């Protein structure tokens, strides 16, 4: 998806080391509005670190990140906090707040951010629960929901902030196989509605169906980037080919 418009998020030359290990070794990437970017790669390749740099959960040692063309003060937690309202994230372990019901999980952040008043937030939350097909679970506590249901509530919770982009960090990796489909279906439907997303995943079927662009990472570097057809069928780099073959 080439565009002369400013990318929504642009990361340049990110370096992040944990001790002696370089999780990110000079990584650059840009995401345009409406783009669906999928990141694949072996464990330890830096995919999670990269995606967490995009909402400031991990702060790179060096590099630049710009949101809608404006550079972010990387060490400023306050700056990141304001940005996080526009960058939503869904985690591998869903991390719903166990002491709150589904609907309370969803309304907490929007109300605290003064995005909307409580009654309005609850209406919106119910609408989102319908969207993820869990309307009847509004008053349920996470402990009484299945993994797939919890993940869908987590997605609704991220959507409640009306983000411009959604980051997914291996959203189905911790799910039992029979629940993966319901979450992937939801993500496909969100993509069809035009949501900009960056998805770190091992689900190649999803990547092929939804991705506009795929990044293959290994050892903290982007080895190859391109449309799904290239990455899955016509690799330019032998490492990419080996990885795809291994997980096919």
């Amino acid at each position, binding site marked *: 998806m080439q565009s002369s418009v400013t990318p929504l998020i642009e990361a340049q030359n990110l370096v992040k080391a944990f001790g002696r290990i370089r999780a990110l070794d000079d990584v650059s990437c840009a995401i345009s509005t409406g783009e669906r970017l999928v990141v694949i790669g072996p464990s330890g390749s830096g995919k999670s670190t990269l995606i967490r740099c995009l909402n400031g959960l991990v702060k790179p040692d060096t590099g630049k990140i710009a949101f809608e063309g404006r550079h972010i003060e990387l060490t400023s937690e306050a700056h990141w906090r304001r940005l996080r309202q526009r960058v939503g994230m869904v*985690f591998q372990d869903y991390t719903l707040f166990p002491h709150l019901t589904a609907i309370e999980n969803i309304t907490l952040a929007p109300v605290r951010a003064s995005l909307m008043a409580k009654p309005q937030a609850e209406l919106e939350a119910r609408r989102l629960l319908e969207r993820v097909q869990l309307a009847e679970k509004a008053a349920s506590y*996470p402990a009484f929901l299945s993994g797939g249901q919890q993940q869908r509530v987590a997605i609704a919770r991220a959507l409640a902030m009306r983000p411009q982009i959604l980051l997914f960090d291996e959203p189905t*990796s911790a799910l039992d196989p029979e629940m993966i489909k319901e979450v992937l279906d939801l993500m496909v439907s969100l993509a069809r509605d035009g949501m900009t997303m960056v998805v770190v995943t091992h689900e190649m079927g999803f990547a092929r169906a939804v991705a506009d662009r795929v990044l293959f990472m290994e050892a903290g570097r982007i080895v190859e980037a391109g449309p799904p057809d290239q990455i899955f069928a016509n690799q330019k780099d032998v490492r990419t080919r080996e990885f795809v073959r291994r997980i096919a």
Partner: protein
Amino acid sequence: MALLLDNLGFFLSGLEFTIRLALLTLVCAIVVSVLIGLMSVSQWRALRVAALCYVEFWRDIPLLVNLLFIYFGAPLVGVPLKPFTAALLSLTLWGGANGAEIVRGGINAIGQHQFASATALGLKRWEIYRYVVLPQALMPILPPMTGLCTTLVQATSLASLVGVNEFFRIAQIVVERTTMQSGHSPAFLVYGFALMVYFAICSALTWLSRYFEQRLQKTGHSAVAAPRGFKESA
């Protein structure tokens, strides 16, 4: 038995002291525990170090020595303390140090993922503590905190050593007086009675705590176990 009834008013006056001291101590110690506990997980190193020093100092000295140290030491720095106040202060300082560790442990038990999840939603740090971490921390904090509270209630008896006429001291006096007057020692009866009273007070505390634990359980406060197959990848 008649002995107990004859001295009932006397016992009750001691009990009043004990309950007053215990309640004040519990309130103050809990406040200190929460304060120091929050300091020890603060993002500012200075606060964390201050909290650590406070906890290590007051935790590593025996309560009895602590009490005498404060009672006899305070006048030397120009602050004469009434026995009751000295007891309250030393129990609060000691209880606060132990309680702070319990609070800190409870907060740490909640885990980084909850914090990361809340951060990703754009919540401010204090909001994360207020709405996400602390409500969940109640579960791991409550049982050991209750244990500390019962210890503090029982420790009020130490106040007798600096002259507070609390319940235990009264029991002691009754035993001594009766032994002198009648020649035989009612120690077993009187101390047995004292035992039962302390037991009743502490039992009430643990019963209350169990009630709150059950209420917390019902609203899903017990931490959700990490899902199966969860793995960390870079």
